[in-house]
């Protein structure tokens, strides 16, 4: 590792404040927001920073999330570095401009303080909102710790604005568990972040600019003329940007480790996997408790490891195939539901990756932590035991609902 020149200050704060600190260090030109539980304190921290003069930016509180993203589209087309945060019903209200943003290739950063989706009425954490938008064309990264939220917000700008990517990024911070979870956090100094993040590189290709007059997003497609092939060209370009992001995300995480001394896995983290016979697959903040359960099982002689998915979009297929090739059974723990498949979404996609390993290893879908429920070490111990049973032939259809008997 090269010499670390960063001089951090240490604070104790919740994940929403850590996200706000990361945003402030990234020096956005415009922030547009609308408060919604459990994201609201993130907006409050940003507002406080602007009011006290520690964050020099235009902060617009809009009349709703649809206006939030529409305003940011204009700001990005004018060349501004932009930020917003939302979740759950707010994300649903934002959906129309949200799905247009990646097609416009506007490199925004949005923190989703993830929340389960009503109905039943809920205001608590869960990843259903993020998972519903997993194919909206945005890059999606799920954080494990409060520190990782702060670090990933800053890294997200570098990934989004990279000229081989040029796509918006959602940084997913588990509602309640990370958003309101208070821990020790190292805050990098501004000069080091300034050296890490280039100045905004947003609208070099599409712009509201009198010196470069252009029609933005004209009608494209249809059944005749140049329509079909033109539309395909843009879709292929979008997919190419997503695939390029797999490389760029790893490069940016490696540079972050060199500059700031914290090494987060960019795509997939392998935990105690090399000599493992079977493994859990996790995503987001649940991973901490899962690692404790893995450690406890190993003390009892179980050869179990863990595969953590950080980047879910683009799906890190090669990294998942590498990790899955090391084990003979997996239990995949989701914090959301894939209604159409009667399983969790990460499980569903892990099946696709298992196919690409060329080995049909047994896999179990576990669903837990819905609507604010906790996934404890005991739940993970159960998941580990059931995955060990799958290893010796006890295959199950349908998901295991971890909180069903809580």
């Amino acid at each position, binding site marked *: 590792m090269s010499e670390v020149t960063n001089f951090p200050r240490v604070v104790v704060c919740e994940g929403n404040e850590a996200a706000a600190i990361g945003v402030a260090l990234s020096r956005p030109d415009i922030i547009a927001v609308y408060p919604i539980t459990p994201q609201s304190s993130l907006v409050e921290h940003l507002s406080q920073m602007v009011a006290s003069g520690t964050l020099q930016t235009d902060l617009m509180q809009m009349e709703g999330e649809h206006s939030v993203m529409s305003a940011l589209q204009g700001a990005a087309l004018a060349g501004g570095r932009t930020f917003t945060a939302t979740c759950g019903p707010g994300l649903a209200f934002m959906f129309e401009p949200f799905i247009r943003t990646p*097609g*416009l*290739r*506007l490199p925004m950063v949005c923190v989703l303080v993830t929340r389960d989706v009503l109905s039943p009425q809920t205001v608590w954490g869960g990843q259903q909102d993020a998972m519903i938008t997993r194919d909206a064309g945005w890059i999606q990264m799920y954080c494990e710790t409060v520190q990782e939220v702060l670090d990933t917000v800053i890294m997200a700008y570098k990934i989004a604005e990279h000229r081989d990517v*040029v796509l918006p990024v959602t940084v997913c911070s588990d509602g309640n568990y990370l958003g309101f979870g208070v821990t020790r956090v190292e805050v990098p100094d501004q000069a080091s972040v300034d050296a890490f993040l280039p100045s905004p590189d947003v609208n*070099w*290709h*599409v712009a509201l600019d*009198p*010196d*470069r*007059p*252009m*029609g*933005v*997003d*004209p009608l*494209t497609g249809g059944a005749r003329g140049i329509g079909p092939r*033109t539309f395909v*060209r*843009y879709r*292929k*370009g979008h997919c*190419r940007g997503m695939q390029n992001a797999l490389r760029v995300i790893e490069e940016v995480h490696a540079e972050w480790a060199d500059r700031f001394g914290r090494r987060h896995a960019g795509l997939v983290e392998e935990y105690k996997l090399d000599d493992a016979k079977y493994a859990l697959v996790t995503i987001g903040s649940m991973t901490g408790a899962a690692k404790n359960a893995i450690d406890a099982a190993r003390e009892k002689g179980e050869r179990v490891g863990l595969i953590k998915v950080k980047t879910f979009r683009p799906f890190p297929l090669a990294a998942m195939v590498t990790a899955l090739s090391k084990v003979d059974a997996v239990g995949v723990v989701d914090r959301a539901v894939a209604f159409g498949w009667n399983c969790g979404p990460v499980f569903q996609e892990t099946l696709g990756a298992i196919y690409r390993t060329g080995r049909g290893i047994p896999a179990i879908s576990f669903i837990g932590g819905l609507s604010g429920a906790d996934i404890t070490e005991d739940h993970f111990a159960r998941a580990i035991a059931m995955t060990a049973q799958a290893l010796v032939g006890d295959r199950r259809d349908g998901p295991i609902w971890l909180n069903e008997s809580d």
Partner: protein
Amino acid sequence: MRRQSHDMFNASAIPDDLSSIATVLDPMLPGDWRSMRPVVDREKCVKCAVCWLYCPAQCVVEKPRWFDFDLAVCKGCGVCAFECPHGAITMIEEAA
């Protein structure tokens, strides 16, 4: 091709698979897709200008002895024929 008021910049350096942008103006006037067109009976037209008043596309043009239509702009809605107090306007189908 009609030009915009500004000269367009050279966009050839921008990758053509990022955002969909247009640097050439395509007017796509209603005359390109109209299915019916108005025809004036010059004997019946008294230049009362009711058609001029009602036309939503503002395509009515004045001739020495009658009113006529700019067929590049007319969208063929038929409001003029419906409103003409003298029955001087007939809608006919565009040739296929």
